């Protein structure tokens, strides 16, 4: 092997190197099982052991993905889905942040609002889907509202918690330094609550995405969910798979994005970890 040449000339060292190249690096080990599974799956499908309408082969799914991507169908549907999720998330998350701040800041608003909100929270938000369809039809409105409803609570609760958990000792400091109310908010309360708020954002995004899937599967004329339901009608199972994978990947990407945001905004928590 050419790469082994730099190790040295002695025969002993050479055998050591050869042995080393045979061991698999740890990060690769995680891929072993999926790759074997995919290979078996592909084999079983190609050999005709499994019906294609039940389980299309990985290559068929890949081909379907390519086709959808080239035709622009995938991009169009994704645009619509993402717009819905973003709209619902911004509406619900924004209100959650607003109410979280209001209730967090004042015990008075807390005693008026929090009990009702906590009561509403016990309703699993997807269970109101039929009600929303009755009220708002199969329109965009019912979808966006369903997503917003789910996105509201995690941000609300975490913002509220974050504000309430600000160290009372730092409030004393703010008093000694004569902070005005607006510095008290921008220099003390919001930064202190930010870790919680960002956690709320992450949870909310996850729920918004789930709401989107349910809303689109319930009935829609565009979007990734529609694409899935449409493909199901025509037994295009590989297209269904593409849709599911898209949901998974976009969900994961938004989560990673918020994590990145966390690392940037909260670098004061452990700046030793970053290299800056």
């Amino acid at each position: 092997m050419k790469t082994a040449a730099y190790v040295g000339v002695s025969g002993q060292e050479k055998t050591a190197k050869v042995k080393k190249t045979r061991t698999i690096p740890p990060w690769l080990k995680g891929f072993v099982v999926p790759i074997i599974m995919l290979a078996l799956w592909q084999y079983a499908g190609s050999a005709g052991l499994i019906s294609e309408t039940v389980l299309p082969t990985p290559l068929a799914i890949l081909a379907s993905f390519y086709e959808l991507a080239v035709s622009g169908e995938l991009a169009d549907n994704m645009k619509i889905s993402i717009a819905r999720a973003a709209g619902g998330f911004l509406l619900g998350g924004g209100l959650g942040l607003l109410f979280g701040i209001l209730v967090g800041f004042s015990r008075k608003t807390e005693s008026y609002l929090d009990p009702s909100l906590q009561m509403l929270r016990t309703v699993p938000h997807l269970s109101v889907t039929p009600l929303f369809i009755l009220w708002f039809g199969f329109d965009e409105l019912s979808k966006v509202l369903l997503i917003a409803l789910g996105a509201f609570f995690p941000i609300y609760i975490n913002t509220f918690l974050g504000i309430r958990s600000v160290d009372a000792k730092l409030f004393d400091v703010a008093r000694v330094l004569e902070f005005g109310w607006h510095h008290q908010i921008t220099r003390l309360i919001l930064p202190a609550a930010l870790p919680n708020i960002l956690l709320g954002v992450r949870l909310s995004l996850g729920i918004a995405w789930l709401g989107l899937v349910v809303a689109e599967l319930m009935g829609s004329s565009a979007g990734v969910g529609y694409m899935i339901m449409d493909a199901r009608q025509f037994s295009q199972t590989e297209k269904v798979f593409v849709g599911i994978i898209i949901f998974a990947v976009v969900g994961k990407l938004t989560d990673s994005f918020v994590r990145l945001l966390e690392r940037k905004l909260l670098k004061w928590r452990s700046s030793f970890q970053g290299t800056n």
Partner: protein
Amino acid sequence: MSVLIRVEEKAFGIADKRTVVLDDIHLDINDGEFLTIIGPSGCGKSTLLKIAAGLDTEYTGSVNIHGREVKKPGISQGFIFQEHRLFPWLTVEQNIAADLNLRDPDVKAKVQELIDIVRLTGNEKAYPVELSGGMSQRVAIARALLREPEVLLLDEPFGALDAFTRKHLQDVLIDIRQQKKITMILVTHDIDESIYLGTQLAILRAKPGRLQRWLPIELPFPRNRTDTSFQYLRQKVLEEFEKTEHSAYTEGAGI
């Protein structure tokens, strides 16, 4: 007299749970003096300092600074807590500036001057997690000094630090007092520290907290702990301590 502290009585709790913590304590401190307060644990030193800062207003008596009555906390009574209490999300220079705008060249220049005084040059952009305890406490001192307080109140500011860092910060304080001529009141349980820093020393006794003894310290700066005059004063303070019934508390005296 620049700082007048009159506490007729300070008590915690109500009815039969009520305990008097401070009883008839009068302290008059001239401009530029460095008063150190020493006393057994639980005798009410922190309570007294909080009253002076305006952080505690539930007592009978009054606090006056240059004729102005102190009714709430504020920047003219700078306060250094036992723990540094920095804002973890602000860098060193942002912590010192706090609610002031660092983009103002005037503020920026003053912040930089203080960073140099507390010997933190080069650490302007560091976050508190990256600082040692002693560095953090220096940032807290700079933060208070930026507001040009009339009096600086320090509650066992170096209690949690190792002996070497403590000595260094004591010298920083002496430097600052000579440069800025700020009146300082420092609470400590370390007899050496009280003599090393103070121009005046108040010894409190416990249950209820009363002024046991007021002692001027007329040693010139810089002081040397091994001088005979230093040792003589130390002996005197120890004797005062033994007169209080809580002589067991002298183990905090260091060495």
